[in-house]
């Protein structure tokens, strides 16, 4: 391509007359914090180049300047809608380094938060998807009902979105029985609403015609591209970290992981609806079987002063032993991974025995799925670009650490 002239500081290039290069974002109603440069031939996309680096926060580098426990607060900003799962992966890796294990009640509480987060993350993703294909009611419903999950998460952790709930060796707060009853109510409500969603959203003929056979990802292609999460399972691959490497309380409950074969936007939508259903069932089992006991490892409980124990008894709130300000895991490396709403999040930590990590590597599901934005839209129509973007539940700040 030869450069022809310079217009207002931008260099213009001559392209062939048949194609149109469209900058889809970063200032675009549905692009999110990123842009996709698409080349159009008529209405058909012939080339797509995602440019995902618009909200880079240098998290991997920043984490090298912060103490171990502070990084948990940093990393939950990866995916603020799914913060419980993200910090859980980091804390699991950190616990491997520190060689501590949370007590059973803490495991249950972690999993309760994980599944609440999963439901709210799926509802968020579906909401964004709905507005991208023009269904404002779907958008409002999913977001409105997500508020219930956000409220429930707030009851557990004290914060609506940035939960910061997990600490090495346990969790920060216990829950009351009144909360568990409230959770049950919330689950009943969501379960009933799922039927409304089906009528208004997936079975609505107009919406469905936008989903069927759009952005088809075959099984082979999904494996090749290393896609993860619901997008992978909607293409017929059986892979879920909760099954492969159980963490939290997943080994104590029965659940199904749905796997759809078709791999189009419709299958991905059904995949997410089914996962919400399974999350509801998991949460019900957890409510029934949650054991009594402490929520922090013995190793740290031993360090509690009398005052701290009193506060625990009165408020069911864990006071940090002062060692937390200066955790020094022995030199070594560890990884932690968790199935969050959008897929597998992977933390790789290296410690040199200092108060700060030597190296933290985090690979988020959205980063692994972002490759789909390069290959999936090719051959589809321009109008399907937002539909594909929405159906893979891509969350830009998560991809762009």
């Amino acid at each position, binding site marked *: 391509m030869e450069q022809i002239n310079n217009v207002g500081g931008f260099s213009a290039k001559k392209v062939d007359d048949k194609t149109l290069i469209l900058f889809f974002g970063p200032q675009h109603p549905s692009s999110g914090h990123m842009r996709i440069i698409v080349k159009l031939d008529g209405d058909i996309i012939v080339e797509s180049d995602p*440019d*995902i*680096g618009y909200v*880079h926060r*240098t998290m*991997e*580098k*920043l984490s*090298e*300047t912060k103490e171990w426990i502070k990084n948990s607060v940093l990393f939950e900003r990866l995916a603020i809608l799914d913060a419980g799962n993200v910090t859980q992966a980091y804390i699991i890796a950190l616990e*491997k*380094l520190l060689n501590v294990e949370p007590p059973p009640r803490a495991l249950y509480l972690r999993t309760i938060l994980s599944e609440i987060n999963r439901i709210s993350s799926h509802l968020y993703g579906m909401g964004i998807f709905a507005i991208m294909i023009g269904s404002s009611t779907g958008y409002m419903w999913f977001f409105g009902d997500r508020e219930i999950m956000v409220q429930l998460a707030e009851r557990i952790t004290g914060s609506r979105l940035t939960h910061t709930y997990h600490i090495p060796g346990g969790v920060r707060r216990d829950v009351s029985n009144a909360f568990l009853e409230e959770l049950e109510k919330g689950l009943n409500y969501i379960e009933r609403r799922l039927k409304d969603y089906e009528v208004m959203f997936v079975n609505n003929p107009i919406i469905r015609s936008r989903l069927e056979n759009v952005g088809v990802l075959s099984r082979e292609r*999904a*494996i*090749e*591209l*290393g*896609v993860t999460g619901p997008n*992978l399972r909607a293409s017929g*691959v059986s*892979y879920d970290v909760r099954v*492969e*490497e159980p963490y939290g309380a997943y080994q104590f409950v029965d659940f199904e992981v749905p796997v759809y074969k078709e791999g189009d936007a419709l299958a991905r939508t059904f995949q997410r609806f089914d996962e919400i259903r399974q999350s509801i069932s998991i949460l019900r089992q957890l409510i029934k079987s949650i054991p009594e006991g402490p929520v922090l490892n013995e190793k740290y409980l031993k360090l509690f002063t009398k005052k701290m124990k009193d506060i625990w008894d009165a408020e069911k709130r864990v006071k940090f032993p002062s060692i937390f300000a200066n955790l020094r895991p022995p*030199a*070594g*490396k*560890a*990884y932690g*991974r968790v199935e969050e709403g959008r897929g*597998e999040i*992977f933390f*790789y930590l*290296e*410690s*040199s*025995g*200092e108060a*700060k990590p*030597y*190296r933290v*590597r985090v*690979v988020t599901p959205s*980063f*692994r799925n*972002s*490759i789909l934005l*390069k290959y999936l839209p090719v051959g589809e129509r321009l109008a399907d670009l937002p539909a594909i973007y929405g159906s893979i539940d891509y969350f830009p700040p998560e991809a*762009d*650490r």
Partner: protein
Amino acid sequence: MTDSSREFQGTSLLSEKTSEIIIDSPDQLLPLAKQLKDKGYDHVISLSAVDYPKSNELHLVIHISSYTKRDLQPKVFELRVKLKKSEPKVPSLINIWPSVEFQEREAYEMFGIVFEGHPDLRNILLDQEEFSGVHPLLKDFKIPEEDITLKLKEDVKSGTNK
């Protein structure tokens, strides 16, 4: 912190499920990767690097796993390649695992590792044009840290400012 005297060099604390291979020369990477792919490791979870300024080495760290082989699915396999910091060059894995495409671009911009044979090796997260040249995840790139005490101005000190 960055000039750590107790620099870590490779003891493993990973769970027993995990296997690990360290190779000294980038030439051995492609044949090994091909073997692993044939064995059933079909996708890359993470491809990144760790900088060890003391020994003047960059380690390319690759975590791979399998989506299709039942017995390999729970495993995370770690592959480490030692690179010279002066000349960080390694053959691209894109033909074996296409899923590394964006991660190789990220390692390129963050560490300056050149992946030979990558079709589209340019920055992905950082700005291509305004890039200053110091790769940010190398230990040479330093971030100033803050003190925990407050530097008080006179008006703040009295506690009267609203």
